[in-house]
Each structure stands twice: as C-alpha cells, then as structure tokens.
C-alpha cells in the first residue's frame, strides 16, 4: 500500500500509456493508427512530467491568496516539469499535424493507408 501514491500512479499510467503507444506503432499497419499511437506515447510522457513534479499535499505553483509567498517552497509543486510539459504538448501537436499532412500526401499517390505498401525505397 505504501507504493500506492499519486506519483506512482502517475508513473504507472504514463509508462503503460507509452508502452501501449510503442505496441501500437510496432503492430498497426494503418498510418493513421500509427500516428494515434504516437499521440498516446506523447500523452504518456506528459503524464510522467506532471507526476515527476508532484509532491504530496501541495498546490499548484501559483502564488495567490492561498499560497504564502514566503513559504511557497513548502507549499507548491515543482513548476519546472509543468513548463516542460507545456512545451512538449505544443511540440507534439506540431508533429502530429505534420505527420497527418505527410499521410495525406502519401495517400494521394497510392490511395492506401497501409504503411507496408510504401516500400519504394529500400536497400
């Protein structure tokens, strides 16, 4: 029971989400599904980031009426991973959008979403 902390639940969910993502892009043939797997992988890393930041019984890193500015260091969670998570989410969106656009382009050529059909370059 001592292991059942919020942080560990976050880690577990994040890691399993990442593994599901990896499983997805290694087994699914449909390019859209592969991109979905990436999105899941990404969400997993965001969960990890937030879990890393978490400290039990603390509040968000915003100094307002509920948080004493002088004692903030003992009352708030770590802001750094949150900042990293913001960045990672936006990057993830950019990459997802690009992958989808590339997929559109590929689809134009062969009218198929099966990644194994696109083997014109090899060896």
């Amino acid at each position, binding site marked *: 029971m001592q292991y*059942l*902390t*919020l942080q560990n*639940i*976050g880690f*577990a*969910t994040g890691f*399993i*989400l990442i593994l*599901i*993502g990896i*499983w*997805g892009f290694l*087994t*699914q043939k*449909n390019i*859209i*599904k592969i*991109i*979905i*797997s990436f*999105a*899941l992988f*990404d*969400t997993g890393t*965001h*969960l990890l*980031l*937030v*879990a890393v*930041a*978490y400290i039990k019984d*603390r*509040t*968000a*890193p*915003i100094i307002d009426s509920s948080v004493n500015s002088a004692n903030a260091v003992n009352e*708030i*969670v770590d802001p750094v991973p*949150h900042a990293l*998570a*913001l960045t990672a*989410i*936006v990057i*993830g*969106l950019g990459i*997802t*959008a690009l992958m*989808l*656009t590339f*997929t*559109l382009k590929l*689809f134009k050529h062969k*009218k198929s*979403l099966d990644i194994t059909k696109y083997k014109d370059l090899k060896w």
Partner: protein
Amino acid sequence: MIYIILSVFLGLFIMVMAIVAVQTDNLKVAIIATGIVSLFASIMFLIYAAPDVAMTEAAIGSGLSTIIFFYVLNKIRKSND
C-alpha cells in the same frame, strides 16, 4: 485518499481507452478514444496540481489534435467514395 482512488480510476480508464484506440479497426472510434485519453489525462493533471498543463492538454491535446485528425480522415474518406 479520494484523490488516489480517483486517479487509479482515471488511470485505468485511460489505459482502457488507449487500448481501444490502438486496437479498434474503426478509425473514427480510435480518434475519439485518443481524444478521451487526452481529456482524462488533463483531469489527472488537475489532480496533480498542474492547472496550466491541464488547460493546454485539454485545448491542444484533446481539442485541436482531434479536430486535425478528423479533417485529415475526412479528406481521405471522401476520396475513397
């Protein structure tokens, strides 16, 4: 304690949705499931005292991403008709 139970619940739900997203053959279902994964993740972020991340994940991860997925899917589906 309530947070722990809630987050276990959310975590399990996220995993189930993720597996649905990966394993289903229906692309629409998969995209919606992904959106739900993001949405529930953003709720988890709130529990983890990360409102900024939660907002971003909700707006971008489960909002705009899903819309972009649907746009592309729509283009592809239409040409299949």
